[in-house]
């Protein structure tokens, strides 16, 4: 019997599905999340998958969050335990007072349960087997049957799920009706045999608004379509492969000439990352917008070419969907651990532009902007996503595009300009911003051609290893990087309600957890100003923010506090004033974690919480 009162909450709880990979549960689980969205209640789902191999465990977690907290919360209120292999761990992970949902066809001995949770058994296999004979059907419909049972337990409107099934199987009437039938099998069984609803409930609300539900990788790929990328070269690696796959799908939809059916793009699956970035550099050298998508190990392989892009000044866009390293690390776990590797990629003195989108909407915007930046700055631009945004659906504001927008093709000297007698020196700093003019191959019969190389050369692209010539070039590259500061997305600052000496810096996918953590910290009486960094090089407002606060926490998802290192390195500030808050176990950072880490540090500093006056 329960030691603890069962949890009760409306529109604010976490359900986790524990499944076996290959059981076809993914679409039922995703439908569960979407069904809640259709109730007008925000959700934040996460895939947790140790590997993509058949038979291994996978989890799918849905945070139901009327308040719209889109970061991971931590803890599980209801476990849908469909995987015997992970049973013990799954049962142990349930919050006190939580619920365990399981297939009771073969009832578990009570020793396999806990006293402080509510156990809900539904004989899923028995129901399925008595209805279906085909083994695959049995497996697939079992998922829909538990979805039906959950809808009754959580008080969900079955019509909304039916609608989703209808959309999914549009035009496939047989599949549609059989899925709806399975849904009701589960629902009716639960209504007749269990006490429905339980303490966790879904109630219709209006908190979703016009927000959309999309994966970061898909949004970034769409950004590449809108940003005018015509060449994509890639090599499969989790969690980035779906960028190229989504780019292919978007291009098929939007980029075929209606008359000829021909493609206004070229996608090549390279033989490796070396070839992929080589193709990108060749295409960009020749004036096309090109990109690759990869993850940490791919970045390692690309670094020689990244140095060429930097020094020979050729645009390139690399989308790095970060996963846990070093080496193969935890390939299906999230981290923000390639900051230093990307910022200073390659040998010699290099610096590269990094963009840090916080969600799919920004992934879309920044991806499109990356092509403008790459051509404007004639260098590599890294779009730094991570598995947490890349491979999960997120609620975000609708994607927007300004139709009057033209692409910024950067400083390209045309045949007409050359005809008019404009002095062309490939590496001449004509405008004092460090950015030289380039010409595309084939521009003019006698003017504007030059030889591109990764070897030192003078302002007119003539091979030279003279020290002063080399240094002149390297200094111009620094000037160019300074110019970049004002072209990249600026940091966004949000101040605490009351003036404070404490600040926090964060970036990328940490954003929703940070927003929520601020509320938790305020409840503990801690006021913090926030600065969300959106790009490297750092805008001058980063230095100002640091100057204005005694201590600044830097929250990130890697062991070595890499963003902090970069800030210290680039801003020359006393590291003592930058407090690292790091989370790197491969799971997404949570508000609870941030609030505890910062709160404990504040306590340790003996910061007196500014409590509200008690009347």
């Amino acid at each position, binding site marked *: 019997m329960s030691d603890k009162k069962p949890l009760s909450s409306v529109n604010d709880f976490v359900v986790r599905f524990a499944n076996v990979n290959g059981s076809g549960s993914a679409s039922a689980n995703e439908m569960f999340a979407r069904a809640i969205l259709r109730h007008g209640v925000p959700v934040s789902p996460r895939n947790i998958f140790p590997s993509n191999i058949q038979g291994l465990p996978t989890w799918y977690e849905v945070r139901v969050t009327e308040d719209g907290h889109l970061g991971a919360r931590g803890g599980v209120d209801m476990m849908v335990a469909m995987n015997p292999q992970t049973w013990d761990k799954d049962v142990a992970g349930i919050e006190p007072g939580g619920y365990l949902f399981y297939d009771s066809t073969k009832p578990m001995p009570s020793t396999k349960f806990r006293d402080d949770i509510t156990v809900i058994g539904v004989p899923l296999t028995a129901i399925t087997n008595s209805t279906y004979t085909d083994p695959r059907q049995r497996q697939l419909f079992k998922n829909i049957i538990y979805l039906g049972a959950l809808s009754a337990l959580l008080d969900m409107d079955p019509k909304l799920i039916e609608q989703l099934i209808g959309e999914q199987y549009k035009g496939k009437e047989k599949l549609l009706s059989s899925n709806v039938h399975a849904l009701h099998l589960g629902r009716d069984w639960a209504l007749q045999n269990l006490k429905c609803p339980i303490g966790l409930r879904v109630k219709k609300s209006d908190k*979703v608004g*016009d927000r*959309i*539900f999309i994966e970061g990788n898909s949004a970034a790929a769409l950004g590449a379509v*809108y940003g*005018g990328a*015509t*060449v994509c*070269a890639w090599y499969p690696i989790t969690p980035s492969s779906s960028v190229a796959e989504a780019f292919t799908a978007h291009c098929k939809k*939007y980029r075929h000439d209606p008359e*000829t059916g*021909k*493609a*206004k793009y*070229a*996608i*090549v699956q*390279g*033989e*490796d990352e*070396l*070839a*992929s*970035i*080589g*193709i*990108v*550099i*060749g*295409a*960009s*050298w*020749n*004036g*096309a917008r*090109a990109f690759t998508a990869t993850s940490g190990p791919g970045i390692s392989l690309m670094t020689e070419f990244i140095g*060429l892009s930097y020094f020979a000044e050729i645009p390139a866009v690399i989308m790095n969907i970060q996963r846990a390293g070093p080496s193969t690390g935890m390939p299906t776990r999230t981290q923000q651990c390639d900051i230093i590797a990307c910022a200073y990629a390659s040998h010699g003195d290099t610096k590269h532009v990094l963009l840090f989108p916080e969600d799919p909407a920004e992934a879309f915007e920044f991806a499109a902007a990356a092509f403008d930046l790459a051509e404007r700055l004639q260098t590599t631009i890294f779009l730094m996503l991570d598995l947490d945004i890349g491979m999960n659906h997120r609620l975000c504001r609708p*994607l927007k*595009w*300004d*139709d009057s*927008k*033209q*692409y910024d093709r950067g400083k390209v000297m045309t045949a007409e300009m050359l005809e008019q007698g404009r002095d062309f020196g490939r590496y001449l700093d004509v405008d004092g911003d460090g950015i030289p003019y380039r*010409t*595309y*191959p*084939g*521009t*003019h*019969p*006698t003017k504007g*051609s*030059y*030889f*591109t*190389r*990764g070897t030192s050369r003078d302002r007119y692209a*003539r*091979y030279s290893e003279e020290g002063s010539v080399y240094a002149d070039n390297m200094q111009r590259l620094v000037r160019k990087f300074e110019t970049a500061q004002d072209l990249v997305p600026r940091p966004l600052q949000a101040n605490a309600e009351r003036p404070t000496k404490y600040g926090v810096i964060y970036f990328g996918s940490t954003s929703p957890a940070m927003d929520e953590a601020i509320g938790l910290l305020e409840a503990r009486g801690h006021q913090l100003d926030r600065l969300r960094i959106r790009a490297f090089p750092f805008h001058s407002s980063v230095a100002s923010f640091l100057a204005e606060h005694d201590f600044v926490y830097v929250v990130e998802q890697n062991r070595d506090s890499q963003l902090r290192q970069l800030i210290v390195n680039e801003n020359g500030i006393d590291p003592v004033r930058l407090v690292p808050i790091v989370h790197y176990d491969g799971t997404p950072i949570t508000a609870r974690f941030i609030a505890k880490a910062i709160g404990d540090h504040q306590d340790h500093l003996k910061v007196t919480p500014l409590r509200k006056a008690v009347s």
Partner: protein
Amino acid sequence: MTYIAKPKFHHPGLKKNELGYTHRDYEGKISTLCAGCGHDSITASIIEACYELSIEPHRVAKISGIGCSSKTPDYFLGNSHGFNTVHGRMPSVLTGANLANRDLIYLGVSGDGDSASIGFGQFAHSIRRGVNMTYIVENNGVYGLTKGQFSATADRGSKSKKGVTNTDNAIDLVAIALQLGATFVARSFSGDKTQLVPLIAAAIGHKGASFIDVISPCIAFNNHAGSTKSFDYVREHNDAVNRLDVLVGRDPIAVDYAPGTVQVVEQHDGSKIALRKIDADYDPHDRLGAQAFLAKHAAKGQIVTGLLYVDPDADDLHAHLNTVETPLNTLEADTLCPGSAALDKLNASLR
């Protein structure tokens, strides 16, 4: 300055080609390679072939890796863009460049170290993709630029300048190119301009992946007795299957031919290759036959040269990818961007 430009001045009486360009218009900077290096002869052959074909020099993109051979694009077609990339990676950069603008002529220049060692993968994959290019390997069996180490094309048993014997098997790039589906495969010798010039011209006219392996002795590190890539050795073991002549609707290139049968191959671009067969039984349309022929002669220590295989109906990567005829690098937002209306629809479908 550490570069040497050629003076622009030239004799007013120089012969002009159909476009009115003189030979000088196809030259580049003065070579900084060792005097007598085979690579310089290949440069001269490229210049000659482009002049004869009346190519607009600026419509050629010259792309190379790293090595003495890869430096040569600076020494020809001074009015075209060149790109000295990184070691072994010319093929990927060329592939990307070609995807961006299908209207230019792509000339890839590489060394045997560049293509058979570090860049073996990229060499193979650019060929199997059918990138429309002329891929020339200047094959000297050694690393010239890093001073004489064996490369992967050095024959087993051949000796280095220091007397060391190579114990590894050699990679025959021609055999590999045939196996990978190159649609134009040839081997030649830098010392045989008569054979090499029309081969380069025909390769440029070929639509698809053209590969020419040119044995190009390194006089500094690999031109001694015991080397199988020395001038003397190649002259003694050269066995030409054919000599050719390229007709581009104009005068044929004037070269000497040994008597034999003549076979005319018409290519996609309308150019015609007249093949004077020295080995009357040799059929350059038979990929399998070419592979067997090559292997048989290699076993006898003979170096087979000439046009070994051609598929006149070949197509290229753009055809495989079904890309538009307009170069991708000229497309702008109006044709590339689906616009806000499409985005609104998409947003609606994502709720």
